[in-house]
């Protein structure tokens, strides 16, 4: 089955006064129809930039997508003209942003904002679009949806606003939804509700989901496959279950060990990953993780490992598995 989304060799750089920073470095991955792929990594690992690059939402300048292909349903999004990419955004690929508190326009009603993509992409009349918007708000479980259409964002809580964002992103029933840390700004109690909703909505519409997060708990529960990013590169990619049972890259293992587990022996201590995330402007010559790696070899400091298949559906970028 051909993949819904194929990212090939995506490279995005930012120019700043301090030099050029490669935020996304030769990243490749696939997303199959209806699957949920999680991209995890710490701050600055390039996961958000990857998501934004797919829809060409990188502010240019200073950012620029310098190489690669983003094949969506066989079509390269990076070569489309302005109108072409606009027709994809919000229509066939929905995007959910990090900050529900500021991602809604404070001066426009909720109804108008949810209905807008339907008018924009489907050419519906406002009246029809609003009727659909009401249905969408119902489906993201906003009570009294009909009345809420006329409400303004400040009358909504953070969780409700993120529900609205989900309704907006899925207004045109996209085949792919990209959620960029959709729960980072929310209370822990609301996070699970939002993610459950996102998952159910994706299943209902048959939409694939790219979930960007730094929360491994989220990954375990919702993702079918996981890509781990470090310093702009994918260092390991595997089915979620497999990644949890047998993490191969030392970084992934480090991440797993640094997460507290409820079912573990209480005497077991958490093992932090020593050191700081690297400065993307001055990456070491070899493996970017080498300075923090517990099992570093001399070779790691001079050569950069590439992502290599180590088992079915499981690839890691580490010389220990080459």
């Amino acid at each position, binding site marked *: 089955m051909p993949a819904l989304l194929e990212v090939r060799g995506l490279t995005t750089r930012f120019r700043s006064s301090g030099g050029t920073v490669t935020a996304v470095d030769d990243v490749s991955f696939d997303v199959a129809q209806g699957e949920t792929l999680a991209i995890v990594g710490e701050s600055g690992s390039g996961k958000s930039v990857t998501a934004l690059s797919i829809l060409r939402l990188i502010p240019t300048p200073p950012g620029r997508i310098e190489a690669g292909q983003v094949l969506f349903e066989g079509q390269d999004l990076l070569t489309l003209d302005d109108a072409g990419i*606009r027709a994809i*955004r919000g229509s066939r690929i929905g995007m959910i*942003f990090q900050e529900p508190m500021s*991602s809604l326009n404070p001066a426009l009603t*909720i109804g108008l904002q949810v209905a807008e993509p339907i008018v*924009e992409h489907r050419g519906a009349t406002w009246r029809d679009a609003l009727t659909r918007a009401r249905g969408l708000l119902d489906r993201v479980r906003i009570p009294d949806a009909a009345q809420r259409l*006329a409400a303004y964002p400040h009358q909504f809580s953070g969780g409700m606003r993120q529900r609205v964002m989900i309704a907006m992103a899925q207004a045109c029933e996209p085949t792919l939804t990209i959620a960029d840390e959709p729960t980072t700004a929310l209370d822990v109690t609301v996070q699970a509700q939002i993610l459950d909703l996102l998952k159910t909505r994706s299943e209902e519409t048959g939409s694939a989901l790219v979930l960007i997060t730094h929360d491994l708990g989220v990954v375990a529960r919702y993702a079918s496959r996981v890509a781990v990013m470090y310093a702009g590169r994918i260092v390991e990619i595997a089915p979620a279950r497999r990644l949890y049972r047998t993490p191969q890259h030392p970084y992934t293992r480090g991440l797993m060990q640094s997460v507290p587990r409820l079912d573990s022996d209480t005497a077991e201590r958490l093992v932090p990953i020593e050191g700081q995330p690297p400065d993307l402007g001055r990456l070491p010559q070899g493996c970017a993780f080498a300075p923090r790696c517990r099992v570093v070899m001399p070779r790691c400091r001079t050569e950069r490992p590439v992502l290599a298949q180590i088992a079915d559906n499981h690839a890691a970028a580490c010389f220990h598995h080459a």
Partner: protein
Amino acid sequence: MSDATVQQVQDEAVVHHSLLRRMGGGLRTFVRRSPMSAFWGVIAALIIVMAIIAPVLAPYPPLKSDFRAMTKAPTERHWFGTDQIGRDTLSRVIYGSRASLTVAVSAVVLGTTLGAFWGLASGYFGGRFDLVSQRIMEFLQSFPDLILAMAIAMALGAGFGTVIVAIAITRIPFGGRVIRSVVLSLKERAFVEAARGLGASHTRMMLRHILPQCIAPYLVLATTHLGVAIIIEASLGFLGVGIPPPQPTWGNMLADSLNAGLIPPWWLVLFPGGAITLTVLAFNLLGDGIRDALDPRLRGTA
């Protein structure tokens, strides 16, 4: 809930803009919070009403000469006195408000609006278009308002429309720069990015997501600049390049007073001059009040 009610609520969602909806209650709050600005707002409103119903208020036709009373100080028959050819000053001041206000309002609406849209596009698109636009606006702003308006009015020839265009052109950079700066800060907000992510076109982003938030600064700007426009109009009239006589405007009346002798009679200077002062003061203070009401962060700044 019946379907009809649902539809009604939905329609409201589209029709109701936050600003419009808040206006009724907003007016009450405005009066309570800043009674001084509200007072000046009433004065401004009275001046506007005076201009509209000038024929009802004025005791005499503005161009009619009373040859029995020429250059007469205020009396019971002529409250504000008469000029050197016996025209009633009160009537001329009342009629003069028509010219002043029509010119000022048209010029400000035309100039500030044009500037605002230019600034919107300039700030939104940025890049070379913004660079060139800003240089043009700086060029316009580098001339003193009055000199520029005079030059344009003289080049186009005297007339009602000419004066409006001349003053409007001097207002363009003000609208442009203020709105551009608002747009520049709005553009970086997450909701603009989110709208872009959902496929909104440039036109839609500008008109639906950014423009509504420019209304408040636009209102403040327009009200404050009404005062400036009135001064420019009066100055043009005084210098003889404004609306041609005999049509009464406050500037023309001041210019005429100079012909009445080496030292002009006080009533020919005081009343039109006072009308200008009062009107400008009213619009400026009202503008300040609106600014404070719409954006409390700016309270106390110039």
